[in-house]
Every structure is written in structure tokens, then in C-alpha cells.
């Protein structure tokens, strides 16, 4: 089923009786060439590119709950490519380019809105750091602009510029960054994958892996054994639990990150704004809610909910940055489980087990990476070679001494 303006008008006149389900609900077959574990954004994008771009058939996606029930539905919907390091920036810029064409690619309204992101500068040292970051972005083909305080005041006049402790001295702007409708991304990829023959199997939890002589034969699930030529794991948040079934320990801890949304307001915030003196970022959804978040809670957690001290910390950051936020009522808050890796960067790689592939460690940056992560993982599954933008995302980078540590804090996951 394809969407078009003509179709919407036709359905409006015929009582909307012509719309059908967007994807099938197949029973699992006994055997597939490719089994993707995880029916979230990354898993569905992987299946989509594997079937469409790389032309592979006999592909299944296994999801323990319902489609898109994990972090693809729990994030703050920001897309951007404003990274510093050479291992990261080309990958995220590749993702940004895929975002820019996503709606044409999937014929689904993912509401990709390039409303820009501004990282605020509060000190001279921070300006130097952001100038360097902006130049690194431009070198990788992305866009970046350093804004003076006057330019910034014209764009976002409501910030607390003359805060005695954290005065705002400028900002780094990426105009092509913005937001997207997170569920729409999962649904667009799901429908696209289904159209290309991928079986999306929901309520099918993987409970074990059948491995013989260092090669994976298939997976045990709550809906029976499924044989597989290759198995790709894309279950960020639960990576350690799933890979434990294959006897692997990962350079990952699971942590909880909270997010918040206010009541719906008239348009006040033009793009995404990040506070440079604390950890606080905010944007406004198309429904009008202010969507914001901050730090992870900082201790291992699989609970999908956080504690009050971090709520207070995030809201204090919001008040320091834009005091007007104190007039808005908080509508709800929630938590999601992050794969926090040892250097703050992800892993897309083969494993020591033949036929078993891993995609995870996204920390709290997985949403923006969804298209490129899917593309690169599909590339790896189809060709057994890393995609050119994802070559640095190897398991062995820690042992070899090549971590990709944007913040430079070392192997301490709760600090990334």
C-alpha cells in the first residue's frame, strides 16, 4: 500500500475503508538465510536495506514485544551529525544524508524536519572546541556555522544570555540537523521491509542460540526453533543479555536515560538547543510539547524508569538556560535503557562466532544513527565487509588501543 495525496483524498470520500494493515503478521518459517534479532529502528532499517538495497531474500526480523516498542519509541527524536572524531563524523553524516531522503525512500511521512541544532558556547575555551568541531564536521562534508551572540539573540531571544555564572557567548549551528517522527521511522522501514518480502515476526522472543563448532545454526525462540544462515543482533539496551546466550561478554553497561515532555505550547523554540554548561537539550514537537532531557542516571539499570535526583538536575539545567520553561507544566517523563559502551561509540561488527553479527553500544545516540546503522549492518551481513563509514566500529578497537572516545573520559560508561 502506497501513500499519496490522491489516495488520501480518495479515501476521504469513501469513508477511509480502503486502508489495510501496513505489514503482514506471518508465522515464523523453520529456516531463513538472515535472522535479525530486534524489531526496533535499527533492526527494521537493517532488514529494509538488506532486502531492498542488497537484494537478499529469506530475511526475518524477530521482535520480543511489538514492533518499535523499545528505544525507537522512547527517544527525543533529534537527528544531527555534529561529531568530532574521524571514526564517527563520516558515519553520522552518511546517516544525515539518508535522513534527508528517507521519506522519498520509504514513501512514509517520517516528518523529517531540518530545523537546525544549536550547541551553546559559554566560555572562550568552549568556543575554541566548537570551532574545531565545526571544522571537523565541514571536513567530513557536513555543515557547521559558528554564531556570534548577536546572531544567536536574533534566532533564540528567550535564552538567559546574561546569566552571571554561565553567560552565553555564542553557538555552533548545524542547519541540516533537526528532528523526525520516531515511530514513523520504524513504521516506514517496517512497511518497506515487508513489501520487499521480509517476515516481521512480533511477540517472538529469542531464548537461546544454537551454536556448533564455532558456527551459529539458528535461534531458539518462544515460537520455536528457527534455523538461520546468518544472525544479526540489533537489540541495544539488552545487548549483553542476548549476546550472553552466545557466551560473549561485551564492552557495554546498560544504563537508564530519562526524557521529558511538557504540555503543548504555541511555537516558541525554533530548533534544537543544547546547554553547554550543564547537560540539557530541548526541542519542540509538532504537537507543541517541549521535548527535553539530560544525563543518564549513572548506575546499571534495566528498569526503563529513572529516579528523581536526575529529574531535578535536568529541570535545573532547563531553568538556568531558559527561565521561561518554569511556566510550562511537565506532562510526563519516562526512561529508556541504553547500551553504554566503554568509549561512548557504537559497535557494528562480526563476532568470534561464524555467522553471528552484532550491532549495538549506541549509548544515547542511537536514534540519529538509525538509517546509517541499518545500512552499514545490512552491508556487513550481505558482504561480510564493513561499510566504509563504519570501519572504526570494531570490537577489537579496545584491545588495539583505538577507542573512539568523543569526551575523552576513558573506559567509564556512565561518564560518556
Amino acid at each position, binding site marked *: 500500500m502506497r501513500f499519496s495525496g490522491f489516495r488520501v483524498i480518495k479515501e476521504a470520500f469513501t469513508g477511509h475503508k480502503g486502508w489495510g494493515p501496513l505489514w503482514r503478521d506471518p508465522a515464523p518459517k523453520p529456516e531463513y538465510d538472515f535472522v535479525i534479532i530486534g524489531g526496533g529502528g535499527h533492526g527494521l532499517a537493517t532488514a529494509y536495506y538488506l532486502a531492498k538495497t542488497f537484494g537478499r531474500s529469506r530475511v526475518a526480523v524477530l521482535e520480543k514485544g511489538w514492533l518499535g516498542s523499545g528505544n525507537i519509541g522512547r527517544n527525543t527524536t533529534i537527528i544531527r551529525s555534529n561529531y568530532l572524531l574521524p571514526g564517527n563524523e563520516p558515519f553520522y553524516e552518511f546517516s544525515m544524508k539518508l535522513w534527508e531522503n528517507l521519506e522519498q525512500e520509504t514513501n512514509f511521512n517520517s516528518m523529517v524536519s531540518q530545523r537546525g541544532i544549536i550547541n551553546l558556547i559559554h566560555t572562550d575555551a568552549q568556543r575554541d572546541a566548537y570551532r574545531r568541531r565545526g571544522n571537523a564536521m565541514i571536513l567530513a562534508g557536513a555543515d557547521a556555522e559558528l554564531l556570534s551572540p548577536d546572531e544567536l539573540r536574533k534566532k533564540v531571544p528567550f535564552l538567559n544570555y546574561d546569566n552571571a555564572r554561565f553567560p552565553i557567548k555564542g553557538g555552533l549551528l548545524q542547519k541540516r540537523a533537526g528532528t523526525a517522527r520516531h515511530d514513523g521511522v520504524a513504521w516506514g522501514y517496517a512497511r518497506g521491509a515487508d513489501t520487499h518480502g521480509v517476515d516481521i515476526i512480533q511477540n517472538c522472543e529469542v531464548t537461546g542460540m544454537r551454536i556448533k563448532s564455532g558456527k551459529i545454526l539458528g535461534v531458539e525462540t518462544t515460537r520455536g526453533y528457527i534455523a538461520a544462515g546468518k544472525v544479526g543482533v540489533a537489540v541495544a539496551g539488552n545487548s*549483553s*543479555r542476548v549476546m550472553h546466550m552466545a557466551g560473549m*561478554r*561485551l*564492552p557495554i553497561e546498560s544504563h537508564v536515560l530519562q526524557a521529558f515532555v511538557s504540555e503543548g505550547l504555541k511555537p516558541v523554540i525554533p530548533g534544537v538547543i543544547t546547554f553547554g554548561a550543564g547537560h540539557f537539550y530541548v526541542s519542540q514537537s509538532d504537537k507543541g510539547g517541549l521535548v527535553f532531557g539530560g544525563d543518564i542516571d549513572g548506575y546499571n539499570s534495566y528498569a526503563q524508569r529513572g529516579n528523581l535526583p536526575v529529574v531535578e538536575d535536568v529541570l535545573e539545567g532547563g531553568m538556568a538556560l531558559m527561565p521561561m520553561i518554569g511556566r510550562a507544566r511537565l506532562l510526563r517523563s519516562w526512561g529508556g535503557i541504553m547500551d553504554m559502551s566503554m568509549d561512548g561509540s557504537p559497535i557494528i561488527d562480526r563476532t568470534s562466532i561464524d555467522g553471528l553479527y552484532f550491532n549495538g553500544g549506541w549509548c544515547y545516540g542511537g536514534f540519529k544513527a538509525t538509517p546509517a546503522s541499518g545500512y552499514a549492518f545490512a552491508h556487513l551481513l550481505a558482504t561480510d565487509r564493513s561499510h566504509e563509514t563504519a570501519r572504526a566500529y570494531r570490537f577489537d578497537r*579496545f584491545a588495539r588501543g583505538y577507542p573512539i572516545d568523543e569526551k575523552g573520559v576513558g573506559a567509564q560508561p556512565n561518564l560518556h
Partner: protein
Amino acid sequence: MLIPHPLLGLRDAQEFTYLGDASLLNRPDAASGDASNAFNDYVFLRDNPAGLHRELWYHEQGDRSWLIVTRNTVTHEVLGAELARDYILKAELPA
């Protein structure tokens, strides 16, 4: 979360700094032949269990002791805490 400090009673988790899995106390032997691999595993790999987790918390805003806290990572329930020093002393006693 409240942490039952063995000396100070229930303390707010905000007074503590979190380090991670208590297995970080078991530093590998640097003189062993396989030290390079052992240290790679020690520094970078974690069990990361869903459920009971023994972990190191530092009472930075308090008496600056290191605690081993047993906590459920699925419910955030804190089940107990002991001084890391006591644990080390016990481990060093002859069996």
C-alpha cells in the same frame, strides 16, 4: 535510592559516586604471562546482568568509604551493602 551504609545507616544514593561492577576489585596479576589479555577483559568487558548486581559505590559526600552494594538492576531495589575493605580483608584471610 537509599543505600544502607554499614556504619552510617541509610544514606541517599546522591551522596555516592558510582563506579561499576564489583569485579573491578579483582585486578589481574600484572606479572602473569597472559596479563595483556587479562587486563583487556578487566578494563573493558562487563557481565552487565539484568537482576542482582554487586557494584562499587564511593561515599564521596560522606565518609569516603568504598561500598559493595547489592542491587537489583531491574527494580532498583537495594538489597544490602558492605564495606569493600571488609570484603578484601575477608578474601585475604587463609581459608
